[in-house]
């Protein structure tokens, strides 16, 4: 049933480690790190929840008919987009949350996906320099 559980668990685990490193780093490098830490936790948790919701959407969409899947995936994307908008507005309005940290937390999971699934593949780098006509 849940085909993506292992992939989700792996990515969320790495994201948690990255967030922990960033939080510890902010305690070391900033004089008043609390707002940055709040932002990282807020953004990171919403990013993880968004990713889980995306996985659920994709698992359900592939079982639908193509037209239904198209509408379902698009509607769910805009719901997630609205949630992200609310999160960003809250972090911009609230003084005790650093907006930049929220953005970093929200985008950290995308960065993890790129690093663990694309940039770790040697073929990706080879294909950049490979001549297309050969």
């Amino acid at each position, binding site marked *: 049933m849940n*085909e*993506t559980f292992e*992939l989700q668990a792996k990515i969320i685990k790495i994201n948690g480690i990255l967030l922990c490193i960033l939080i510890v780093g902010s305690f070391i490098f900033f004089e008043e790190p609390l707002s940055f830490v709040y932002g990282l936790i807020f953004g990171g948790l919403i990013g993880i929840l968004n*990713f889980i919701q*995306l*996985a659920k*959407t*994709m*698992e359900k*969409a*592939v*079982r*639908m*008919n*193509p*037209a*239904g*899947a*198209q*509408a*379902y*995936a*698009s509607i769910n*994307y*805009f719901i*997630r*987009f609205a949630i*992200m*908008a609310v999160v*960003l*507005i809250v972090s*911009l*309005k609230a003084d005790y949350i650093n*907006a930049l940290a929220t*953005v970093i937390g*929200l*985008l950290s*999971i*995308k960065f993890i*996906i*790129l690093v663990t*699934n694309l940039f770790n593949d040697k073929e990706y780098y080879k294909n950049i320099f490979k001549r297309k006509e050969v």
Partner: protein
Amino acid sequence: MEPITGRALILACSAIGAGLAMIAGIGPGIGQGYAAGKGAEGVGRQPEAQGDIVRTMLLGAAVAETTGIYGLIVALILLFANPLIGLL
């Protein structure tokens, strides 16, 4: 009629810019829907490959969303934390 102040002009242009930046949020929605539709077609044609299709689609969709978030961030910064007003 009162003359237009620099601050009012910046705010008006920022609002227009924020609206234009939000257009970036539409693209990933359409693209993700299109990918989901094609994924459903693929699973219908080859049901045993469902796991691979869903995993690949999940990673692609998660990365594709990023550009929409960038547009959202630009729009919200222009609206709620405009750095240009401080330059006046």
